């Protein structure tokens, strides 16, 4: 609540140029009553007065000052850099293996300053190099599936929630059908249908099966927002469907979708790992955190660090995206600024 005690300058008195005409009406509250109405806010910053603000502009201004956003943004930029240019971060070939140099060998000090500072896996390959080179497949799968699922599910949920009626009935039933398909079983069948299995076939399979969750969240959120008075007010002004959807409903309905999508991002990277473990996802010459995590599970008692490093990389990635999602969600809510 703004400060009510502060008074407003006289030149904002609404009575200044409107003379009351009906004395009968005036004695309802009288002139004294009108003096009370000058509830005011803190004076705005005069320097910023002239430029018009928008939600996204304000959100960006706010984000730049949030430490959580800065940390997550730096992490994400770094991860994307690693994914695009892995050779910048290591000169070791992640596929070069020396079977005598595997995880059972007792490490000596020189290992901590060389290519093997994360240790070596069962086939004597540098874990550090594999974490660096594995980023590309994992991050591609994570980001692309999340984007595809958010777009697809968001669009479906938005249409179902906004239009309602038969549109909602059809989309919701399709969603239910997809919900009934077990993710791994469905992906197994789907991926078998692909002639070549690479990162993109995994992306398509996961996006095809995963959009329903986002569609449901979006639909519920849109239905709640659709009924609010400001949407009715927009309609009363003559706003069209596009304006109502994208100016009024979407900004107010997107928050839970952002949260669910960023959490799901980690899930997609692990789903890719599971598929690889089952032998239908990425195949061995491809390097991904998922492939390494699943192969490291077998040696967890002898050499836990083989599992630790790719898993830690995955956790950091997921954490960075969740933090980013949280910061964006907060920045889009003017009340939390």
């Amino acid at each position, binding site marked *: *609540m*703004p400060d*009510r005690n502060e008074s*407003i300058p006289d030149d*904002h*008195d*609404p*009575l200044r140029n*409107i003379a*009351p*005409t*009906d004395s*009968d*009406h005036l004695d*309802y*509250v009288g002139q004294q*009553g*009108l003096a*009370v*109405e*000058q*509830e*005011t*806010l803190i*004076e*705005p910053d005069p320097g*910023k*007065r002239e430029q*018009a*603000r*928008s*939600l996204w502009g*304000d959100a960006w201004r706010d984000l730049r000052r949030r430490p959580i956003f800065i940390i997550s943004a730096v992490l994400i930029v770094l991860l994307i850099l690693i994914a695009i240019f892995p050779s910048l971060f290591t000169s070791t070939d992640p596929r070069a293996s020396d079977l005598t140099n595997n995880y059972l060998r007792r490490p000596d000090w020189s290992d901590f300053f060389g290519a093997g500072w994360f240790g070596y896996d069962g086939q004597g390959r540098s874990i550090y190099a594999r974490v660096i080179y594995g980023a590309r497949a994992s991050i591609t799968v994570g980001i692309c599936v999340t984007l595809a699922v958010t777009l697809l599910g968001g669009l479906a949920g938005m249409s179902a929630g906004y239009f309602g009626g038969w549109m909602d009935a059809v989309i919701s039933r399709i969603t239910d059908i997809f919900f009934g398909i077990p993710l791994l079983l469905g992906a197994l069948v789907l991926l078998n249908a692909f002639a070549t299995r690479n990162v993109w076939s995994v992306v398509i399979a996961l996006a095809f099966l995963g959009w329903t969750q986002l569609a449901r969240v979006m639909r519920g959120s849109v239905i709640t927002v659709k009924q*609010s*008075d*400001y949407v*009715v*007010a*927009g*309609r*009363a*002004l*003559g*706003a*069209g469907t596009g*304006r109502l959807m994208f*100016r*009024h409903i979407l*900004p*107010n309905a997107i928050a839970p979708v952002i949260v669910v999508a960023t959490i799901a991002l980690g899930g997609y990277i692990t789903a890719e790992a599971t598929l690889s473990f089952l032998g239908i996802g990425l195949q061995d010459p491809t390097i991904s955190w998922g492939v390494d995590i699943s192969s490291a599970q077998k040696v967890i008692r002898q050499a836990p660090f083989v599992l630790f490093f790719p898993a830690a990389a995955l956790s950091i990635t997921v954490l960075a995206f969740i933090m980013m999602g949280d910061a964006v969600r907060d920045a*889009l*809510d*003017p*009340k939390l600024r």
Partner: protein
Amino acid sequence: MTVNGATPLGATTPEEVAFAQEVRRGEPILEVRDLRKHFPLTRGVLFKKQVGAVKAVDGVSFDLMQGETLGIVGESGCGKSTLAKVLMNLEPASAGSVKYKGEEISRLSGSALKAVRRNIQMVFQDPYTSLNPRMTVGDIIGEPFEIHPEVAPKGDRRKAVQDLLDVVGLNPEYINRYPHQFSGGQRQRIGIARGLALKPEIIICDEPVSALDVSVQAQVINLLEQLQAEFELSYMFIAHDLSIVRHISDRVGVMYLGRMVEIGSDLEIYDHATHPYTQALLSAVPVPDPTARESRDRIVLVGDVPSPAKPPSGCRFRTRCWKAQEKCEREDPALTAREWLEGRARHDSACHFAAERENI
């Protein structure tokens, strides 16, 4: 502003004459005839079968004159808000006609409807939910200009928004703030500014002050009155607070169960009510003076409002009326002035036995 300067009908004391002369009587700007809004009740999941209808608005007729304020009162669920929504074309009418300056508007769509929306605007009940929390005040008030670009050229919009803020008594520098940074009264002013942006001729106020505290209510009511004088607006003012309606209205219509049961000037309704329901409503208005309160004869209605899905036959009020007779069950009373009534009591009232009652 009287008709030919003649003494208005039934004005007896000088105050009444003076007051009645204030009542503006222009041309009808909105003519509503036998308007109905029925919400179907359906049964079945896949194959929906209509099993009945909630008759939220069931045959309402009235005129809204240019420059006047028509108050609509009635208890919760009587169809006031549905009436407003149908008039705004937010809900399609089931039957009946709404004419704006002689032109039928209840079945318009597309660009014709958009054009009519410029002239009829609405102020909402709850200022906490009627403003988009993620838009700045400038965007909220400027949105009408984006939807109807012909009203204000692009370069002038910011200035136009600031002028509107000034008109409703807010600091024009608040343009970049968000709704949550304002109090309830200030938010309602923003809502009013949005309604005014297109320079409409009619503003439908759906309980615009019922969510505000009493001191702020008065400010908003006064603001509405100033704006009416300045912009020659016609108001349809929906409320359940009888005192506020009396204060702001030139004419008052009383609704019960989807029907208009009595309509007339504020003096006719408040001091010379002839419909038993209006009399019961008025007797429930709190009286501040304890002695007057004791001498007053309160009418306490028995029973509940019947379901609008199954309204009683004949007169809808008969199930709770102390005057009800067999005729009320058979015949639906028309909303007309009964010939046996005299003076101010002779106004439109939908009761077979319309009569004034002392001491309410």
